[in-house]
Structure formats: structure tokens, C-alpha cells
């Protein structure tokens, strides 16, 4: 009885608040009921599945929170700024240099890096430990920026939206004023109930980010990442060196587990390495490695996983020759 009274009160309050905000003509009681059931009839008809940049940014933030639930963020101010400096140098040369990029380091020995839509890039401490200079970092960040610049998430978001719309799931968040109103589905923050569709799109992108892109998309990101890092003045061999280091180190005793996720989120390792070798044949030699700056910036943050796997066997690869 009490729950029913709450629901009635919530409905009436929602009607009043929506009426106030929309001037009385915006949202109909039918839409309110639809919203409560996760269905907004007017949205299902002709709902747009286009994505604009502000929406992409919100989805990127959502993915970041999901990553934060699986990995601990390394709250190292100096290291984060350094990774972001290299990342921005590369992103400035990307196909979306006008997008604001954010870079973060995850406190994990695991070898992995993630690109979320809207410009959010995360790299693990373990990945940094496999590197030995800035050119390698630029190569890996260039690859992750490539996924964002090529909008690899957008098709997944669109597919997710299309599937949701075909199932009759509403697209629009209901603005209901401040405070929580029980009885209406969805999360409430600052007076906004997230649309089920928006949350489904976020779920889809979280899933994509954690599981990884297709092999074709990985290769595309390699191609453009190579280009971005080179344009930024780095030795174009950076990404090749990283892929080689992953290949060489992953077979070492006790190290295999750290590379498992990398292999699943970044498929086609050997083929990608081969393709990088091919790209290097026609690339102009030179470019900076900035090994000293990289070593300084790493400080102690990446050191634990960088220790030799066994005596006389360095975790970081020897200088590859081109």
C-alpha cells in the first residue's frame, strides 16, 4: 500500500515537474508512462542513431568508470602528466586533433591499453614497464588514439541503438527536476533519468573496450598510429618495438598471464608485427627515441614489473635494428 502511494505520488510529482520545465506542452503523460516502462513511443518512431561529439564524450566517461571498477587508477600526478604530454603530442597529429584527449595510467602489472570514445585513453603500469623509451610509448598511444580518431566505437554504438530501438526501448532521458523520484526506472543524477538506450549504448561500448576491437580495426589503428607518431617526430619503429617486446616477453616463465588480456583485446599480434616491419621499410629513418626523458618520467612507478624475469634476461628488449 505504501509502495503504491509512493508510485502515485512520484507520478504526480513527475507530471508537475515535467510540466513546469517544458512549459506544459513538452512531454505527455503517455511518455511518462512509457518512460517508467523504459519505452518512449515517440522515440521509437524514427529515433536517431547518430552520435555527436558531446554524446561520445559522455560514453567515454561511462567507459572510464567501468574500467575503474576493474582496474585501480594509478594516482601519480607526474607520471599521468608525462603520459598525457606524449599522448597529446601524438593526438595533435591525428585525424581528430580538435578532440580533447585525456590519458590515465592503470595500476596493474597486466599488459594492456584501452581507448574509450570521446578521447579517453588508459594504459597499464605493466605496459609502461615493457617499454624503454618515449618513441615506444608514442607508438602505443598513437595506436589507441587511432581507434578514437577513426571512430571505431561509433558503429558499435549505432548498432546497439538500432537494436534497442527495434526492441522499443526509449531514447530520451526524462528531465524531472532535482531529487530522486521512486518508481521511475533509470539512474538519477542532477535531475536527469538516464535513458535506457543511453545506458545500453554505454554497456555496448564498455563491452567493446574490454573485449577489444576486430583484427581489421587493430590493423587500421596500427596504420594511423604509426603515422601520428612519425608526424609527431618520433622514431616510427616505436610500435614495432612494443609488439616485438610483447612477443619476446610473453613466452618468458611467469610472464604469460600478464599478456593474456593483451592478446585477447589486441588480436593478430604476429601479423601486426609483420605489417609494422613492412611499413618501416618505406618509412623515413630517424625520429627521436627520448629514452632518457622516458626513464626519468618512469621513476619508480613502472619499475616492479620491469625487473628482469630471470637473471641475465632483461624484461625490456635490446635495441631493435631496422
Amino acid at each position, binding site marked *: 500500500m505504501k509502495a503504491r502511494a509512493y508510485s502515485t505520488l512520484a507520478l504526480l510529482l513527475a507530471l508537475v515537474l515535467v510540466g513546469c*520545465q517544458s512549459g506544459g506542452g513538452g512531454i505527455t503523460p503517455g511518455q511518462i508512462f512509457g518512460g517508467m516502462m523504459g519505452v518512449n513511443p515517440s522515440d521509437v518512431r524514427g*529515433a536517431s542513431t*547518430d*552520435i*555527436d*561529439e*558531446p*554524446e561520445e*564524450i*559522455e560514453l567515454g*566517461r*561511462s567507459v*572510464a*568508470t*567501468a*574500467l*575503474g*571498477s576493474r582496474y585501480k*587508477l594509478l*594516482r601519480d600526478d*607526474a607520471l*599521468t*602528466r*608525462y603520459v*598525457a*604530454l606524449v599522448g*597529446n*603530442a601524438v593526438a*595533435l597529429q591525428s585525424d581528430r*586533433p*580538435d*578532440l*580533447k*584527449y*585525456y590519458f590515465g595510467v592503470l595500476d596493474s602489472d597486466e599488459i594492456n591499453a584501452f581507448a574509450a570514445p*570521446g578521447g*579517453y585513453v588508459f594504459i597499464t603500469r605493466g605496459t609502461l614497464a615493457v617499454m624503454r623509451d618515449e618513441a615506444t610509448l608514442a607508438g602505443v598511444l598513437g595506436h589507441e588514439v587511432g581507434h578514437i580518431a577513426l571512430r571505431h566505437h561509433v558503429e558499435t554504438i549505432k548498432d546497439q541503438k538500432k537494436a534497442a530501438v527495434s526492441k522499443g526501448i526509449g*531514447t*530520451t*532521458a526524462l*528531465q524531472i527536476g532535482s531529487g530522486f523520484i521512486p518508481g521511475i526506472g*533509470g*539512474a*538519477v*543524477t*542532477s*535531475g*536527469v*533519468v*538516464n*535513458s535506457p538506450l*543511453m*545506458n545500453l549504448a554505454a554497456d555496448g561500448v564498455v563491452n567493446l573496450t574490454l573485449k577489444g576491437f576486430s583484427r581489421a580495426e587493430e590493423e587500421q589503428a596500427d596504420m594511423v598510429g604509426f603515422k601520428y607518431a612519425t608526424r609527431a*617526430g618520433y622514431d616510427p619503429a616505436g610500435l614495432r618495438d612494443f609488439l616485438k617486446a610483447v612477443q619476446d616477453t610473453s613466452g618468458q616463465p611467469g610472464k604469460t598471464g600478464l599478456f593474456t588480456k593483451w592478446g585477447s583485446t589486441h588480436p593478430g599480434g604476429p601479423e601486426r608485427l609483420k605489417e609494422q616491419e613492412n611499413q618501416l621499410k618505406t618509412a623515413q629513418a630517424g625520429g*627521436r627515441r*627520448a629514452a*632518457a*626523458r622516458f626513464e*626519468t*618520467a618512469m621513476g619508480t612507478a613502472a619499475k616492479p614489473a620491469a625487473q628482469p624475469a630471470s637473471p641475465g634476461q632483461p624484461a625490456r628488449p635490446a635495441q631493435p635494428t631496422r
Partner: protein
Amino acid sequence: MKRTTIAISLLVGVVTAPMAAETTRWVERTKVDIRAGRGSFYEIVDTVLKGEQVEILKTEDKWASVKTARAKTGWVYEAALKATPVQPGTSDFLKSAPGDTATSRTAASQGAKGVYAQGYAKEKGYDYGIVTWVESHQPDGPQIETFLKDPGEKSGGAK
């Protein structure tokens, strides 16, 4: 008589219509940030909405220095502009965003100021703190500018 009226109306229309200069461009995206320098890491000086006009002052390496309707000058990536008029409009997403975000010139790079992502995090039981921390610990424009000029071969360059 009717033809004369139409002709006069057309003439008046032509004379009074705002003349678009060669340097006029129209914003093609829902929201675009105008920045103090040629890069996404520079300070935002203005935000323009789809269909708004800007005047090109000069172009450099795919970036255009523009003057907005509010007489603010800054840089915008050329791909966000079009040489022919664009109908004003917003996206479904911004229509459903909270009032300030949807209707004002709140920076495009702020998305919907995190309200959707916060809602998502709350629903899933995730901590939004990771976003807040990362967004507030990025280098600013001058720091990136200094970094870009330093080849970094000497130890300590990143500090």
C-alpha cells in the same frame, strides 16, 4: 500589379539579406569549441553552435583563426566548418541533456558535463572518481607547448 509586388519583394530581400563574405563559414557540428591556440589542449575562448557564422581571419595547417558573432577570436579545426549555410540544429542527445548543456554554449568538450556518465556509474555501482581525477590531472596548453619544443633526449625534460 501582383508581378510588380513580387519583384519589389525580391529586390528588397536581396538588398536586405545579410551579405556573406568570402571569409564567412558556417558551423557544421552541433557544438564546437573555439580555442586560444591550434590544439584541443588550449583554453576555450568561445563555443559555437551548429548553423552559426564565423569569419575566417587566417588558416594554418588545417586550423582556422576565426572571429565569432560575439567578437571572440580563436582557433577552430577547419573540418568543423562549411563554406555554405548550415541549418541550425541540435542532436537528439543534446535535446535530452539538462537545460544548461542543451541550450547554452557550455563547452562542447564537456559533453553533458558528466551527468549521463554519473548516472550510468551510479546505476552500475561504479565510482565516477576516476573521470574526475583523470580530467583534472592533464597538462595545460603551455605545458604541452613546452614539451613539443623539447626533443627530450636529455634526462629530466618531462618534469
